[in-house]
């Protein structure tokens, strides 16, 4: 497929994207866009970013062949891109480092961020500590209750965690609140968004900072295979940052790409977060994209066992890639992801994040439809330490195969 260059100068991916924000912050988006484009042309900045990824976060992350898992499962060989080995335990840090370096370059001294389960909040607090920035993290009251450990971590890192009591008191509302803060503090504050969402230039910028995942994968797979490309690439999709980062260099190749959304208790129920499968066009957090909403346009509360996929929207580029048919988006249930997580544990000794387990679950299904000499690369976006409590509750609650 020959793709138009996206986003266009208005931040559009076909119909999607754009900047649906109060006028107050329009200038900041322009300022950000300019600073970002400049930085991306600056070799020192690019080198600094690469260096920080290497010496601080431990990149490159390895590409691990999951041989016992592949064997047990049957079918194609599954490779894991080990974003779980990053500092703070997920791909989120790539983007956080990139944006923090940009904030420093722009002379901003304060950052704000939103967080759901706390993963991006921890990443933001981490880079704030690292680069000497003050940091405020918006987090829903309900999430603060559920994720006390991450809240404590953010505080240890010196961040202020602001309890959000508006709306459903979860990620979507924390994001609203972060935007509200930004509208008020925009002159000296950098808003560090945690996924490939939000108004232009955020989706583009986040992709840029996350594409290291795909670039490394391509190199590593190529050296391992003697120059080949994988036969499929799979990543989970919440806001879509790990997926877009992984897909980035593969989009223009002929490699089948799969984004995996959270089907929660099933896409036929009202407990899921399958934005592309079940959503419709709308505006959320500054961007026109697909989202879960009522007919009237009230945004609905999504559900997934994995907090990181529990988002009613999706990055606009995914909405675009979905519409163009370049990426297939599939949905995987809580139970399927739990099963995949356990299978991966037992066969490879890797406890992955519940988010990532959605990608693993789908790749297991996909692998079964493919020959043994075929290969799938899965983005293992994060580690599962953060999910052990949830898993224990599940085990106690005795979830059974439905």
């Amino acid at each position, binding site marked *: 497929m020959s793709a138009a260059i996206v986003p266009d100068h*208005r931040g559009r991916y076909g119909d999607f994207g*754009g*900047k*649906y*924000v*109060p*006028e*107050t*912050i*329009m*200038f*900041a988006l*322009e300022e950000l866009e300019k600073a970002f484009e400049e930085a991306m042309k600056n070799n020192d900045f690019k080198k600094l970013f690469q260096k920080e990824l290497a010496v601080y976060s431990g990149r490159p992350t390895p590409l691990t062949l999951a041989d016992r898992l592949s064997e047990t499962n049957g079918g194609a060989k599954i490779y894991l891109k080990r974003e779980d080995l990053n500092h703070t335990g997920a791909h989120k840090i790539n983007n956080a480092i990139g944006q923090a370096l940009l904030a420093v370059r722009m002379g901003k001294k304060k950052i704000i961020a939103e967080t759901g389960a706390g993963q991006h909040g921890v990443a933001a607090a981490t880079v704030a500590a690292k680069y000497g920035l003050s940091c405020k993290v918006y987090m829903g009251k309900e999430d603060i209750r559920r994720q006390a450990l991450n809240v404590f971590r953010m505080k240890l890192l010196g961040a202020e965690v602001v309890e959000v009591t*508006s*709306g459903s008191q979860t990620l*979507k*509302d924390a994001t*609203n609140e972060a*935007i*509200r803060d930004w*509208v*008020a*503090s*925009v*002159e000296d504050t950098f808003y560090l968004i945690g996924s490939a969402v939000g108004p232009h230039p955020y989706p583009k910028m986040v992709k840029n900072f996350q594409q290291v995942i795909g670039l490394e994968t391509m190199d590593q797979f190529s050296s391992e295979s003697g120059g080949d490309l994988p036969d499929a690439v799979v990543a989970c999709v919440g806001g879509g940052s790990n997926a877009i980062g992984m897909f980035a260099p593969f989009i223009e190749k002929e490699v089948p790409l799969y984004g995996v959304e959270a089907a929660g208790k099933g896409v036929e129920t009202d407990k899921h977060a399958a934005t592309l499968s079940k959503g419709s*066009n*709308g*505006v*959320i*957090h*500054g961007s*026109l994209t697909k989202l879960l*909403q009522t*007919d*009237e*346009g*009230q*945004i*609905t509360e999504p559900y997934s066992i994995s907090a990181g996929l529990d988002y009613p929207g999706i990055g606009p580029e995914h909405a675009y890639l979905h519409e163009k048919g370049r990426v297939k988006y599939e949905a995987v249930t809580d139970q399927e992801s739990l099963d995949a997580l356990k299978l991966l544990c037992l066969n490879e000794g890797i406890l992955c994040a519940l988010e990532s387990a959605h990608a693993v679950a789908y790749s297991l299904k996909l692998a079964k439809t493919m020959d043994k000499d075929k290969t799938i690369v899965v983005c293992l976006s994060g580690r599962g330490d953060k999910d052990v409590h949830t898993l224990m509750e599940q085990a106690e609650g005795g979830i059974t195969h439905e």
Partner: protein
Amino acid sequence: MNKRWTDFKNSADYRFVPYIMAGDPCEDATIELSLALEECGAAALELGVPYSDPLADGPVIQRAGIRGLKQKMNLEKTIKLVSKLRERGLKIPVIIFTYYNLLLQLGENRFISLAEENGVDGILVPDLPFEESTYLKEMCSAHHLALISLVAPTTHKEKLHKLAKEAEGFLYCISSLGVTGIRNEFRDGLNDFLKAAKENAAVPVLVGFGLSNREQILQFEGTSDGFIVGSAIVKKIEAMEKELISDREEAVKEFKHFVESMLPVYSR
């Protein structure tokens, strides 16, 4: 421009434009409150539409939205509410204040025709900046609806000039950064900003965001043509929620009294 806007423009008053949330605390109350506001001297009315994710609003208006949502108020019903206001004799321009997603789901074209049918005069979409509003602006123009432009102290000068020149109905000048809500202080440089707006605008220039008392309002008298009061009014409505349902007549009287007490004397 319709007659209501012409009257609005030609008024010699220091224009008072209140904001209330449709359906807060119920549709009937909204009607009475709107009429009361006109009686208090309102030059136009902003009618908010309840939304799940009102990211330009502060806590007071967020809570009003939740009350409105409980009443199952929505964009279509809000528009239709305007025709009831007209039936009751409301003469001032009514502006629908809605987030863009609600508009998108209703459909921009359908909005325009509903607005025309029901006597709506304008629309304000806080999360639809100039850059994204080309289509809506054209449609509004074609149907004599004002798409109210907002400008902020952070708006680049050239953009401010352009928006001021093209503004319809009135130019909404955001008096302080941040979301809607009551403020104690306003920023330096606000006067320069308002001056630049007035120099370029062909329509009245109003200030809004955070005004809550007579003193603050008077502060902008020399530099603007009017003012918008939202949270301070909505807060009063919140405080009187029960009475507005159980003993509406008495409550509306008290409400009027409250509104009058905050207005500059000559606006009555």
